[in-house]
């Protein structure tokens, strides 16, 4: 599904990613862990096409297509979704208008007619119930005045609406209490199908108790320095990152 080869990227001339190689197949859950500043968020931002980052070398193919050539919205239409570490507040733009625009733009890309108002609202209700999101939130402006937990839940709600092929969860656990964490993780698990994949970026092993990864990668200084099965998370929790970086 996703194939990253020797990916280098920089911001303001400073190289952050120094040769990432990663292969994600359909149905797989990959976790990416690593200390602060290792390049985890840079990697997710580069994949979704954030204009601040410059790719200097390497290739990324997504379902056989050159991902790096696509505009951010096209990447979304192709099925790439990022759950933001810090979801953005958009005052004045209602959740309903925002989601309707997003859904219909995707349908346009797929050559489908826009959803009828009734169909759309029904879908909103279903998906909202699915992630146990308060109905009051969907009547407000996007993320405006939402608590940290509500913002993250809103990300999963949007994910449920857009049904992506590959979801990247960037530090979805940050700022969540244990109940919210469970609900968000439940949502992610319920949305998983044998055809969809997930990349979970996290600092802590905690989230991986709820979202079980197939593979864990350790990102350090812009490279993946270790990949192993789920047991690696426990080892990292116990020993920290030092032993791996020293091993290098």
């Amino acid at each position, binding site marked *: 599904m996703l194939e990253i080869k020797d990916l280098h990227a920089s911001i303001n001339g400073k190289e952050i990613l120094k040769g990432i190689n990663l292969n994600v197949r359909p149905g797989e859950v990959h976790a990416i862990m690593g200390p602060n500043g290792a390049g985890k968020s840079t990697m997710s931002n580069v994949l979704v096409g954030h204009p601040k980052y410059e790719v200097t070398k390497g290739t990324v193919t997504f379902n056989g297509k050159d991902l790096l050539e696509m505009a951010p919205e096209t990447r979304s239409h192709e099925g790439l979704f990022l759950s933001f570490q810090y979801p953005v507040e958009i005052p004045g733009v209602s959740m309903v208008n*925002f989601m309707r625009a997003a859904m219909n733009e995707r349908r346009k*890309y797929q050559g489908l007619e826009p959803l009828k108002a009734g169909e759309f609202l029904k879908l909103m209700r279903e998906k909202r119930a699915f992630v146990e999101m308060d109905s009051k939130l969907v009547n407000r402006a996007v993320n405006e005045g939402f608590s940290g937990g509500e913002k993250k839940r809103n990300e999963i709600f949007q994910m449920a609406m857009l049904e992506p092929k590959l979801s990247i969860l960037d530090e979805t656990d940050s700022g969540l209490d244990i109940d919210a964490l469970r609900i968000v993780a439940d949502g992610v698990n319920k949305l998983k199908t044998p055809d969809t994949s997930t990349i979970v970026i996290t600092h802590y092993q905690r989230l991986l108790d709820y979202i079980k990864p197939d593979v864990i990668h350790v990102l350090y200084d812009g490279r993946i320095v270790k990949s192993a099965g789920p047991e690696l998370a426990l080892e990292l929790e116990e020993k920290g990152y030092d032993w791996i970086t020293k091993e290098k």
Partner: protein
Amino acid sequence: MNVAQQYIDLYEDQKGVITTHSSGVMNAPRELALESFVQQGIPTKGLERYRYTDLSHVFDIEYGVNLKTLLPNYNPYNDFSCDVDDIESSLHFLVNGVYQGASETPNLPDGMLVGSLRKLTEEYPEKFAPYYNKLAGEKNDPMACFNTAFAQDGLLVYVPRGVEYTEVLQLISLFRSQVDMLINRRLLIILEDQASMKMLLCDHVDNDITYLSTQTIEIYLGKGARLEMYDLEETHNETSRINNVYVQQEADSSFLMNGTTLHNGLSRNDIYVDMIGEGADVLLSGMVIADKKQHIDNHTFIRHAVPNCTSHELFKYILDNQAIGAFSGRVLVERDAQKTLSEQSNKNICLTKSARMYTQPQLEIYADDVKCSHGATVGQLDDQALFYMQQRGIPAKEARMLLMFAFVDDVINTIRIPVLQERLRKLVEQRLRGETNKCTGCALCGGRTCNK
């Protein structure tokens, strides 16, 4: 030659024609007004109040004038078939500043008068002479003086004590000429105690001629009177408008003025509100969407002369290309005006590096028990929000549209007529999408102009 001189000469040469085609009430203050204009001249940037808008170049064009107040051989009713289904409205026309009548005989409550300022002041001179040019004359602004010297007609609205007029009175001011033209028009609006009404003013141009219009509006609100006024300027890039509005509010009166500038060349809106009775309330709101070299200057002055009055101001501008916007909001709270509540907000987005916004809040407070606030920002669209929307599949162009639309939505929400809100939303959306690049007629009333 001094730019003002050609107008002074015009007045001296044509004095007889001007006065013959107007009323005694309107003629009475002409000489003094001209004298004051001669002394002050056309405002340039040297004058503090006009520091962002130099008017000399818009006057430095040879305009035609219509001093014989002729009406063109044209029937505006053909173009303006009012189709605002859900608004009970009566439609009145000014063509080149001359009152041309209503779309149908207005069904007015007893004692209420609506019609030609010239005719009604001829008919009821004693009734209206005390009002005409009282507020404007006191302020002595050079542009209002110019208007007083030259204006020969316009609209008069008189709502007697206790009358609540429920229809929306719509005034379409249409500019139509074969040569570049100067148009001077005048509105006098009097609401006696407890009277109320809603007005919609629309400025439209009919062709690609260069127009300069001056307009002076005087508004008297008696005790407990309520007026909502919605003003839409949708002309074209060759139209300049100088608009002076003077409002006097007695106790417990309420005034709302919402101004929207979508297409214009250069506009200066000077709004002066004097609150002289306790418990009065004013809301001034405005929205500007401008591109190319459009220039819009909203200049407001609210005077709290007595205790317990409230004033709110909300102005938002979106400026593209080389557009220039200016806002100044002066609030004067006199020593006796305790318990004043005054809020002012001016937020602006410059979409390009060459767009310019000048914002100037000015609070002058002499009372000690008041609550006054102001805020002004000039910024760009939020990049993070744009990217967030793109990640969800909304193309950059559409995302910008949604953000701009959201930005001005609270200004549209100050409109208290729901149908009008919806109409304006549609109009703003079309404007932001660039579907209209100049006046395409009155989208509010279904008319069409500007066939070129």
